[in-house]
């Protein structure tokens, strides 16, 4: 999975079908990258993802909790309307994940975390 560095953030455009193994590998890869780059925030762009089920939700949320423990925030952006509908109907809530409307909004959110974290 390609992980890009944008400023102090890591940007992950997820462009393939997320099967269980892929999402597990992404988690490992992200944690390593957070450690290596000391990124302040991770932005997961799921615009191309057509199905997010309970396990994928769980793993994304778990990754965000882990990242948070390493001092890194997680922003999810680009959830497609049918995916949002399905997640809401199933009652999925994502812990430690900030949700943005699009990539631009995600960058603004990530920036606001940075400001807030500086003050601490």
């Amino acid at each position, binding site marked *: 999975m390609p992980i890009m560095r944008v400023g102090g953030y890591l940007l992950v455009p997820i462009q393939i*079908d997320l*099967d*269980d*193994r892929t999402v597990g590998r992404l988690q490992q890869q992200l944690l390593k990258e957070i450690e290596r780059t000391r990124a302040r925030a991770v932005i997961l762009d799921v615009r191309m993802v*057509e*199905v*997010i*089920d*309970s*396990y994928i*939700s*769980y*793993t994304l949320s*778990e990754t965000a909790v882990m990242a948070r423990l390493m001092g890194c925030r997680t922003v999810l952006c680009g959830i*497609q*309307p*049918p*995916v949002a*509908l*399905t997640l809401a*109907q*199933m*009652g*999925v809530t994502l812990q430690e994940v900030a949700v943005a409307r699009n990539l631009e909004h995600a960058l603004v959110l990530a920036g606001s975390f940075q400001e807030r974290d500086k003050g601490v």
Partner: protein
Amino acid sequence: MYEERITSIIEDPAQEFDIVVRITREEDIAVARQMAKQLAQEIGFSLADVTRIATAVSELARNIYRYARQGRIMIRKRLEDRDSPGIEVIAADRGPGIPDIELVLTRGYTTWERSLGIGLSGVKRLMDSFAIHSEVGKGTVVITGKRRRTF
């Protein structure tokens, strides 16, 4: 009659279905989900319903893989009612079975460590019909369906 159907599904899983996916590896979960999506699109479901159906199939396939190690996802078009065609999804396995069905349908209940515990209850919410038949030591069959909405 219901009992007979359950038995025939367990005995001869390939009958009368448009799609039969054997779930034996983790990758098969994604395969089942993809094929369900295609069939739902073919039937003419809305994008929202296609996503619901694909997600439900994903949950069912994962349960088979997790708890029974192997089993089958069987899907067929239901075209008897021409005004409102539908889809039927059956998940069948010869796994350990479920001792307390009511309990596993409780949101947040799970025996799996890394899980939200909303899989089966989620499937029930996403689909129109939902029935589950399980016997400890014998296996589990989940029968679920959805009709296409007409606008």
